[in-house]
């Protein structure tokens, strides 16, 4: 059963894997390393351990304001895009209709549009309409941007949701509303939560749309961009970046665990089909 018989062992394989992982993660590892370094410049050798950059963040009201903006935008975007994606995912997975494949394709296509072009056209529209740039415009732009991500999480979560589960609930005396509350929602809940987390994470890290559409209220990535002009602020930015990466990893990991759990559940429920 093991792969040992199938793959010929090579001495170079561990080296290759190590190099691969280093390529992926070394640049990111530099961030936390320098964020704890007791020097204003990001050069080796390290000057000693400090947490003062983190302490400085805590007193930085502009940064805290940007963090608050990011939080508001992230929450709104995740709820809006997940809400819209729930409807679309349900339609695509539950019903058969003309143009189903084309519709799904169109819904997912924005994933491949160059973001900067989308940002420019959104800015043009917003300015044409005379709408003032604010967090609201960022929310709208990022909702559009997050929708395909939310959709792909939810479609994989809803796919294989067995209609007979709802029928079984009705058959056992439950009402339509009760069925939604006791069966539909709990079964798809992990996928919904996963979609919320993914959308929030994408919004939190998203820069281009936020940069174009945020006006005078920067989100965290926009704030970081602004700070890069001042060399002395760099260690603080690294500390902030470290925190954001940590948060993103936690959110995405949780989302993935939930998504897999939802998928396994649905598989288990429908396994008797074989």
């Amino acid at each position, binding site marked *: 059963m093991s792969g040992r018989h199938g793959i010929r062992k090579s001495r170079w394989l561990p080296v290759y894997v190590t190099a691969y992982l280093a390529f992926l993660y070394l640049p990111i590892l530099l961030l936390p390393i320098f964020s704890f370094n007791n020097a204003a410049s990001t050069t080796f050798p390290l000057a000693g351990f400090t947490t003062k950059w983190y302490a400085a963040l805590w007193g930085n009201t502009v940064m805290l304001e940007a963090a608050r903006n990011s939080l508001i935008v992230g929450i709104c975007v995740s709820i809006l895009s997940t809400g819209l994606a729930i409807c679309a995912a349900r339609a695509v997975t539950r019903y058969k209709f003309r143009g189903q494949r084309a519709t799904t394709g169109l819904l997912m296509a924005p994933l491949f549009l160059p973001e900067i072009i989308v940002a420019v056209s959104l800015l043009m529209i917003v300015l044409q309409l005379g709408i003032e740039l604010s967090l609201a415009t960022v929310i709208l732009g990022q909702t559009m941007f997050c929708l395909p991500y939310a959709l792909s999480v939810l479609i994989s979560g809803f796919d294989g949701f*067995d209609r*007979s*589960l709802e*029928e*079984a*609930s*009705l*058959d*056992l*005396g*439950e*009402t339509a509303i*009760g069925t939604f509350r*006791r*069966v539909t929602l*709990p*079964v798809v809940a992990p996928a919904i939560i996963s979609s919320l987390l993914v959308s929030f994470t994408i919004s939190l890290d998203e820069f281009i749309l936020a940069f174009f559409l945020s006006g005078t209220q920067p989100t965290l990535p926009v704030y970081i961009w602004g700070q890069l002009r001042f060399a002395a602020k760099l260690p603080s930015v690294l500390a902030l970046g470290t925190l954001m990466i940590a948060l993103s990893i936690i959110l995405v990991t949780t989302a993935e665990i939930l998504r897999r759990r939802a998928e*396994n*559940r*649905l*598989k*288990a*429920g*429908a*396994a*008797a*089909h*074989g």
Partner: protein
Amino acid sequence: MADTPMIEIDAVSRYYGIYRALDDVSLDIAAGEFFSLLGPSGCGKTTLLRSIAGFDTPTSGDIRIDGHSAIDLPPNKRPTNMVFQNYAIFPHLNVEENVAYGLKRLKLNADDERQRVGNALEQVRLAHLSKRKAHELSGGQRQRVALARALVMRPKVLLLDEPLSALDKKLREEMQVELRTLQKAVGITFVLVTHDQYEALAMSDRIAVMFGGRIAQVATPKEIYQHPLTRQVADFLGGMNFMQAKITSESAVNLSVETTRFGNVTIAKPKGFTANNGQATIGIRPERLRVLWDDAKADCEVTGHVVDRHYFGEITHLIVDVPGLEKPLSVSETNNFGADDIPVGAPIRLAYDPDALVAMAD
């Protein structure tokens, strides 16, 4: 049968556009009966079952359950419960919670609820797995959960939609016996949908055979096997050697026919029979033809020679060409006496009982 039937299907039709899934179906099912709807896929049996459950609404006609019209009732208001083909076990709940699902609506006190769930699990021999989740159960165990979950509601009618089709052969045969025993123990009406003739024959009190949205015959398993009304029914339930015979006389209940190799016989006239150019379709089941060994004699014999042979373990199917018959006869013989050793090409004599011949409408 003097009482009101438990289920009365009254002139039910179901159209999907111009496609007739059910075409004027009428049927009574008695209380406490194990009733099977048997037919090939697309014959309307599942549509009929789902109409009884309330998941499908007939275009016309009425369905009465225990004397009351149920046609306008949603599934959750009907005194029926269903075992779904894929069992539809709630994946986020464990076995016990699945079984208790419907009881929660009844707002029983905690002790009563626990006792009813416990009893239902005992009934299907799953008490030891009460904390397992759906994905930790085998196919057979899931089916038991689905059964317990429905039975715990104490329905007047239990509806079973191909409940054994997902199980492997051995388990399927075990569950046939178990379902039958369970039905006798709880004493409620079971309506089973199946496309498996052996399943229907082995389990049912009565069977309705359906084709193309219509009921072809309703009878006990034995009656339906021995006296199929139509050629289609005979063909669907087991094998049948068909042949044409000339009608010599016809009364209200009997047909006298002249056959080419089975002599002149008088047999029961099936309901709905009409002669076709003075001809009738008659038949004999493969197992009603018996190989005559050496110089054994029988009152009625046909002779021919073996053209093919199929070995099935306990029996052998011999294909016997008989001069004068339009098709070779299929003969099913047990292997006790060496039927599996009869060489292809050998001459053979077959004995039959004239009572085994049946006439069928086309």
